[in-house]
């Protein structure tokens, strides 16, 4: 699905990612943990194609394409989805209208017929149920005045609408109450297939009780310093990052 090799990224001359290697296959869920400022969101943003980052070295192959060469919208159309850590508000743009644009752009890209209004509404209703969101959200402006938790759920709703191959969830669990956390996790699990993959960025082992990862990575100071199974997440929960810091200091 995605193959990241020796990825080095700087912002305004400061190297933030210092040689990331990561390979995610179809059907897998990878969790990325790590202290604040270690570069998790940077990695997610670079994968999604955000400007303001200089890729100084390395390569990223996504579904056989050179991802670095692709415009952000083409990455999305090829099936890469980022659930943002901080979803943006877009006043005046109705959710339904926004989603219709998005979904139809992706369908056009693949030479598929665009949905008509009725088909589309049906699809939206179906996916709203998945994240237990009220239909009223469709006529509200994108994220405008949404509570923190509603914004996060809305990201998962969009993911469900777009049916991506690779979804990167950047701290989608932060700010969710326990019920919402279950709803989000449940949504992800229902969308999970053998053909798609997830990269889940989180600070809390709690989420990983519901979304069970195949691999857990620890990102520290721009490098993946540990990889393991879900036990690693438990260990981090108990002992924090100090041991990781000590270990990497001795390397």
């Amino acid at each position, binding site marked *: 699905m995605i193959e990241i090799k020796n990825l080095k990224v700087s912002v305004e001359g400061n190297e933030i990612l210092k040689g990331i290697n990561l390979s995610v296959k179809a059907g897998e869920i990878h969790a990325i943990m790590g202290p604040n400022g270690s570069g998790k969101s940077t990695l997610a943003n670079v994968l*999604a194609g955000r400007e303001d980052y200089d890729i100084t070295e390395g390569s990223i192959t996504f579904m056989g394409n050179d991802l670095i060469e692709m415009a952000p*919208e083409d990455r999305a159309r090829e099936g890469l989805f980022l659930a943002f850590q901080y979803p943006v508000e877009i006043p005046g743009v109705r959710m339904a209208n926004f989603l219709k644009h998005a979904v139809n*752009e992706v369908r056009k890209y693949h030479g598929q017929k665009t949905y008509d209004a009725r088909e589309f509404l049906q699809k939206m209703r179906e996916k709203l149920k998945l994240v237990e969101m009220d239909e009223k959200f469709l006529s509200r402006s994108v994220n405008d005045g949404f509570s923190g938790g509603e914004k996060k759920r809305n990201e998962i709703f969009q993911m469900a609408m777009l049916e991506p191959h690779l979804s990167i969830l950047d701290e989608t669990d932060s700010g969710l109450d326990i019920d919402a956390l279950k709803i989000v996790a449940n949504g992800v699990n229902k969308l999970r297939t053998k053909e798609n993959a997830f990269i889940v960025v989180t600070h809390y082992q709690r989420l990983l009780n519901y979304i069970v990862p195949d691999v857990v990575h620890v990102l520290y100071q721009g490098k993946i310093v540990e990889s393991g199974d879900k036990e690693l997440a438990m260990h981090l929960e108990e002992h924090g990052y100090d041991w990781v810091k000590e270990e990497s200091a001795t390397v």
Partner: protein
Amino acid sequence: MPSDQKKTDEQQLLEKMAKREYKYGFTTDIETDQAPKGLNEDTVRFISAKKNEPEFMLKWRLKAFQRWSKMKEPKWAYIHYPPIDYQDAIYYAAPRKQKGLQSMDEVDPKLLETFEKLGIPLAEQKQLAGVAVDAVMDSVSVATTFQKELEDLGIIFCPISEAIQKHPDLIKKYLGTVVPPGDNYFASLNSAVFSDGSFAYIPKGVRCPMELSTYFRINAAKTGQFERTLIIADEGAYVSYLEGCTAPMRDENQLHAAVVELIAHKDAEIKYSTVQNWYPGDQEGKGGIYNFVTKRGLCDGENSKISWTQVETGSAITWKYPSVVLKGDNSEGEFYSVAFTNNLQQADTGTKMIHVGKNTRSRIVSKGISAGKSNNSYRGLVKVYETAENARNFSQCDSLLIGDKCGAHTFPYLEIKNKTAKVEHEATTSKIGEDQIFYLNQRGIDTEDAVALVVNGYCKEVFRELPMEFAVEAQKLLEISLEGSVG
């Protein structure tokens, strides 16, 4: 990052922008009847005679001309342009073959074709349902649809030149009462030389069942257009009126100085919407219309209401402040505006809300969007007289910048003479959010569409004030104007 690729994307967009054509830039090859170049008393007499006007109109015009001769062009607006040579323009141009048309079939087919190209079918079998149209080319009205249907309700909707002939009493009673001939430089000029425009009178208690609209088209070269519109809603009447306008692409600047007067009597309501799309000039700022317009409404009676909605995307220069004088107690004034400027366009636009009566309310929502190297200013005055107990005003003025070579300016003025007044003003200036665009990109929407979505969202409060069909038109127009403005 693929910064190299980004550049090429930007370049492509810029190239696209360079190629972007003003869709309405064609000219119609039609014979015109013109006044000799220049402006003096004889020009005024010429126009009045051409129109076969009664003596009182000629006197009115000459007085206006005399005042204008002693006035100076105003310089306070945030706009810059070379001096206008008023003697180098033609003040009257009319498509020939125009006498006493009995039906639409007698209108020159070329004219019908012109308006059809603009999306305004006039021929009877094609007329827009629910919209009565007065089509004005250069200085004269060429056709008015649905006149008969409206007449049956006692509604008068006709060219103002016709109203001067057929309804001199109404003209004498109302013309120049809201915008007096000596009001300002451009209004005086208009009063002296206006040649046509629309006139509407809605009688007592009648709710006009269709949109009334006028389409203005400048066609002839080297001419100015000076139209005059007068709309009166008598007690308890209601009317919704829309004006649209386009012009050919020409290298020279053409002057457009219109006057619009609205009068709402007791319990009456007038909704006036404008979609202004005069030729804006090219990328280097060559050509384009100079749009100097005076629009004012008088809420004369109790509980009357006047609402201005404007979507301004065209013209090289826009100088325009649709205003409401809230004279009647409990009367209400509104101003909703979207002003978009690109390339080297300059807009200085806003409103005046003059509170005179008790419990008068006004609301101002202005959305300025600047792209390219353009300059966009909001200029507004809220004035509350001693007599205006419990006046209320709410103003919201937002500016959105696309790129970093453009400018946005806000000049709100307040003059409050009554302590019971409550006036609220909110203003924001923001750059189009890179994070919003990226968010939309990440959902598969390309940058151009993303900008259009964000800008449309930003203007929504204003668009929803427009009649349905025109809201769609305005949105499309904005999208076209936005094309290539990112980069």
